[in-house]
């Protein structure tokens, strides 16, 4: 059995200190980013396309090494934490792949099963329970491409649960979903909050980010702000973050922002160093 890195329960769940990530070209994708996440909080990562939202999630997951700075999860370096659940952008998944819903969830168990072992009764029980928590047990035998977008997101959340994740990173899970599907995901996240799951969600939807999260993080390669919506979404910060993609009007009753900060597929074409 593969052991995860030890956890220091007194340390922040995630701590980045002065993290810089570069593309192969030498250009920076993230620059000097520092912050800490507390157990059980739900944080939205917002910013324009190419602001480094996906990169930030990958650095925390230990998939991309930072060029400088340190990433700690529960007080120990990133990488080696099988307690991190990752829900990829929908455009990054091959939905024609011949796997069923329950087989995708079972993948979360792979590291705990160990080499040369096949899934046992306990693993399948965990898969079943994880699907039940996201209300998907009825579709367990479907091929993943046969699901709706919201159902697909729920399957990947179930996979993180089967993985026994304590931190959940979600890359644009709300993009392209209708309101009922978004609400279904928030209902699951509410249930996870009770279990002290720390959740970091990248989104381009400033409205949802401001309304449905504990804190939000505004990125433009650098961290422009991290705190409550009132602290972060100031007229000055929005201009810095979105430039000409957004019009900010300062009215007597406060700042009004207009703009479409969409879309999916951010940062796909880049090669990371």
């Amino acid at each position, binding site marked *: 059995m593969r052991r995860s890195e030890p956890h220091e329960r007194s340390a922040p769940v995630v701590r980045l200190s002065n993290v810089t990530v570069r593309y192969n070209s030498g250009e920076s994708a993230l620059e000097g980013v520092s912050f800490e996440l507390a157990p059980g909080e739900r944080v939205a990562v917002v910013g324009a396309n190419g602001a480094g939202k996906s990169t930030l999630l990958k650095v925390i997951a*230990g*998939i991309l090494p930072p060029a400088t700075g340190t990433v700690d999860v529960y007080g120990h370096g990133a990488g080696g934490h099988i307690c*991190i659940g*990752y829900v990829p952008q929908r455009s990054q998944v091959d939905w024609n792949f011949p796997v*069923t819903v329950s087989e995708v969830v079972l993948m979360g168990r792979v*590291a705990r099963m160990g080499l040369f072992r096949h899934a046992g009764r306990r693993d399948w029980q965990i898969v079943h329970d994880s699907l039940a928590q996201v209300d998907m047990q009825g579709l367990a035998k479907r091929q993943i491409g046969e699901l709706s977008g919201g159902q697909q997101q729920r399957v990947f959340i179930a*996979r993180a649960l089967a993985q026994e994740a304590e931190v959940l990173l979600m890359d644009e899970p709300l993009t392209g979903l209708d309101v009922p599907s978004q609400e279904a995901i928030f209902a699951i996240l509410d249930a996870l909050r009770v279990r002290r799951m720390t959740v970091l969600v990248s989104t381009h939807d400033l409205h949802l980010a401001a309304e449905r999260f504990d804190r939000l993080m505004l990125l433009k390669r650098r961290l422009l702000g991290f705190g409550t919506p009132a602290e972060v979404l100031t007229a000055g910060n929005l201009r810095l973050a979105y430039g000409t993609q957004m019009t900010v009007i300062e009215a007597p009753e406060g700042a009004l922002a207009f703009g479409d900060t969409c879309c999916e597929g951010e940062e796909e074409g880049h090669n990371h160093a």
Partner: protein
Amino acid sequence: MLDWLLAPLQYEFMVRGLLAAVMVGIVCAVLGTYVVLRGMAFFGDAVAHAVLPGLAVAYLIGGGPEGPLFWGGLVAGVGTAMGIGAISRGGHLKEDTAIGVIFAGMFALGVALISTTRNFTVDLTHFLFGNVLGVSAADLRLTAVFGALVLLLIVAFYKEFLVISFDPVLATILRLPTQFFRYLLLVMIAVTIVIALQTVGVALTVAMLVTPAAAASLLSRRLPVMMATAAAIGAFSGVAGLYLSYYVNVASGPAIVLVCTAIFLLAFLLAPSRGLIWHRAVR
């Protein structure tokens, strides 16, 4: 009908050829599911062609077709697979560019080497399009041993290959040795290609890897089912192709590949819910 089926079996070379074609059909098709799912068809074709100089050197040293062709091919195939893996991993060249350069260069070297022999055209034809009726008992043993090894690895590392192919990001988070499995898969593809060479030859081996798996992908929604379907198509094509070759008197390698291709076209047209005709009918 029975006579029609039994008649070719009176020849020992036909029996050996059929056994070889069935084994190659199964191993290529099962491994081929990963080639298709991971989009590695061009890589497979390249390794098949790049094996030629290895065959040529073994042929020249061994003094004829009885020489250690298998081992020459194996060295060249595995070497090429690792080389392509290393070059494309560096990130300065796109993978298909690296493959294109190595593939053409190795193939040219192979043809150049073979052109120094007197039987140039006959020998080259056998290398390019296979000579399944020339399979010896020793060849058959090598095919069985290495084919079984490849199948064993696919079963033993089933869940690892599945995760790495479906979601490499998860594989990295779970600390699976993704690079090890990536190279292992490249080597397994190279080994499979080398055992397929005598049956269908350098130029057509990619069809045995890709075509049955592609047809199976239209007919199944689960990986184990896709592997079994592909294996059945591969084995059937091997047998049907050899009978076709025996009765219609066409070259055996191309006959096998043509049967595969016909099955693929049928699946493409008729597959439930994915075939062309189904889509037309629904509309």
